């Protein structure tokens, strides 16, 4: 199919999505899609660290927390500050990126699973601080978190205001999140197909050889941490404005693990696969909520606690997907790229394999 036509169809589908979803499944599901987009940004960010550079990070949610709390504290009655969104969004990315460097620096010498446990430790440390920094001075609001956060406002227009009765606030957020997700995916793809992206993959494949080829592995790793973290910060800023409320409960280790599952299940290192994984894993637990009513319909009685069955099935699906597709549901098409090499014409048409044509 012609590239232009395909692009048009995808764009039309994405614009129609909230309306169709609302019509078919109800407004709650539009909200779920909004969250799926936030998770897509997180998964894309973690993909830079884990998928590209091969650094196993189990504390990634910390950067999401940094972005969210930054917005929450600077745009709410908590400190009486109400800074504008257009300033806080890049600031969230920047501060989270700095945290990425700060937390990345001590881990540079660590390998594999040692790195995993240290990043996990950092994630927990940040959460525990958020939980306890309400005394002696109230900085983070403690376990209660921060309330009454300003809604995202662009050019004087608050996204919490419905455009009309058939265009509610969740639609506003959908289009904003969609735009940022596309931006993040675009940046990821540009980075992947660049000198920096190649250096990341080289480190993932063989750190010693990468260093021997003149790559300063320390700087390049820190750059991966910073870029990944800044995507997390973006997502966190949007999350705080969307929810209007943040508390440490949203930033547990389980969240980090969930984001990692999205990356691996979708297809590490493959941008489309990662987005697919994020959407799938955001939607699946919600879809499994219907298990309760399904039981009712089939057996006329709810036998088991629906929420535990739901997570049980979620666990089983993680296992099954990995058993049958160990490289993820949608891994990067390296094999296709390889096959193209045997086809002379294909090689000449495709003047550079870095045109992200596939």
């Amino acid at each position, binding site marked *: 199919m012609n590239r232009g036509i395909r692009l048009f169809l995808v764009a039309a589908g994405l614009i129609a999505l909230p309306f169709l979803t609302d019509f078919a499944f109800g407004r709650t599901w539009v909200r779920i899609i909004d969250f799926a987009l936030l998770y897509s940004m997180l998964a894309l960010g973690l993909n830079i660290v*884990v998928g590209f550079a091969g650094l*196993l990070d189990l504390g990634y949610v910390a950067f999401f927390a940094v972005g969210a709390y930054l917005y929450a504290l600077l745009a709410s009655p908590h400190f009486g500050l109400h800074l504008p969104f257009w300033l806080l969004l890049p600031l969230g990315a920047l501060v989270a990126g700095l945290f990425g460097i700060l937390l990345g620096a*001590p881990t540079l*010498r*660590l*390998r*594999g*699973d*040692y790195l*995993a*446990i*240290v990043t*996990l*430790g*950092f994630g*927990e*440390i940040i959460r*525990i*601080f958020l*939980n*306890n920094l309400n005394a*002696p001075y109230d900085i983070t609001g403690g376990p209660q978190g921060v309330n009454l956060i300003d809604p995202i406002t662009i050019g004087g227009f608050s996204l919490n205001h419905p455009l009309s009765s058939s265009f509610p606030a969740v639609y506003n957020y959908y289009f904003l999140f969609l735009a940022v997700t596309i931006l993040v995916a675009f940046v990821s793809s540009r980075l992947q197909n660049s000198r920096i992206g190649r250096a990341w993959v080289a480190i993932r494949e063989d750190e*010693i050889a990468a260093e*021997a080829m003149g790559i300063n592995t320390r700087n390049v790793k820190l750059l991966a941490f910073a870029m990944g973290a800044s995507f997390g910060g973006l997502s966190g800023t949007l999350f705080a404005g969307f929810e209007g409320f943040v508390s440490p409960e949203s930033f547990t*280790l389980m969240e980090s*693990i969930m984001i*990692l*599952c999205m990356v*691996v*299940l979708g297809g*590490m290192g493959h941008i489309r696969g990662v987005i697919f994984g994020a959407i799938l894993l955001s939607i699946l637990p919600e879809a499994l909520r219907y298990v309760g009513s399904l039981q009712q319909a089939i057996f006329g009685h709810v036998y*088991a*606690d629906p929420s*535990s*069955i739901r*997570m*049980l099935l*979620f*666990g*089983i*699906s*993680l*296992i099954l997907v*990995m*058993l049958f597709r*160990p*490289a993820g549901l949608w891994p990067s098409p390296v094999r296709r790229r390889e096959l193209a090499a045997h086809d002379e014409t294909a090689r000449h048409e495709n003047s550079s394999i870095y045109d992200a044509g596939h």
Partner: protein
Amino acid sequence: MEIFLQQLVNGIVLGSIYALVALGYTLVYGILGLINFAHGDIVMIGAMVTLAVVHFLSGTGLPGPALVGIGVLVAAIVCMALGYLVERIAYRPLRDAPRLAPLITAIGVSILLQNLAMMIWGREYLSFPPLFQSGSFTFSGVSISPIQILILFASGAMMGALSWMVKRTRLGNAMRATAQHPEVATLLGVDSNLIISITFVIGSALAAVAGTMVGAYYGIAHYDMGFMLGLKAFTAAVLGGIGNIEGAMLGGILLGVIESMGAGYLGALTGGVFGSNYQDVFAFFVLILVLVFRPSGLLGEQVGERP
């Protein structure tokens, strides 16, 4: 000084439980290079099964320690079977898969076990009946309860037995050989699949005992108790040098002591700014500090960057 000694004793007791769980992580890691994320949940299942057996037999009039004995036996059998099954179903098919694939199945198994336990035993905290004589012995101001003594002896004995088995028996040799050179071990006639299964079974038995200890010590059991415990134990294993058996023991006990010292002194040390609610921060902070200076843990092999 008395507070110090008291916290030291409490820390060593807590630490020896961590050490038992950490051994399960380290055994599996040593042989497969896999973080068995579900191990903490096997500990939880161990606690739950013991509790169920104790409740079931509580009408028989058997004394408390006997009830626990039978309970822990049943729990060990259940956990060993579970450990075996988990390895067979969720890890073995992925032995040559990308490294993170078995980590994800391990997370899947962990979620599965927790929710299975929630369906069977409910969401409430279950209380362990007081099975041991209460009260405590006091030595120069430091008090120690019978259950603490029991935990110390039982975990010490199990760790001793495990060290002996790994170092001195044919099975132990085969385990070490499989961990170091799987291909060579296979060539020498070691059935590596069998050894891996046995490793999981041993780790799970230790988990069952540890689960019972935690349940009896704190008097409660809960379907998600395994998560934080597993995390702590894994931290302990890494602290000591993952894959190293003595490292897991050292790391476990050290982490236990660090935590209880943190709980006891953090407030005083920082002038009340950081209270005992920061004890986990303290534990992770020590871990990070250790790893920054010794990237392979305290007793881990310091492999240079050999090309």
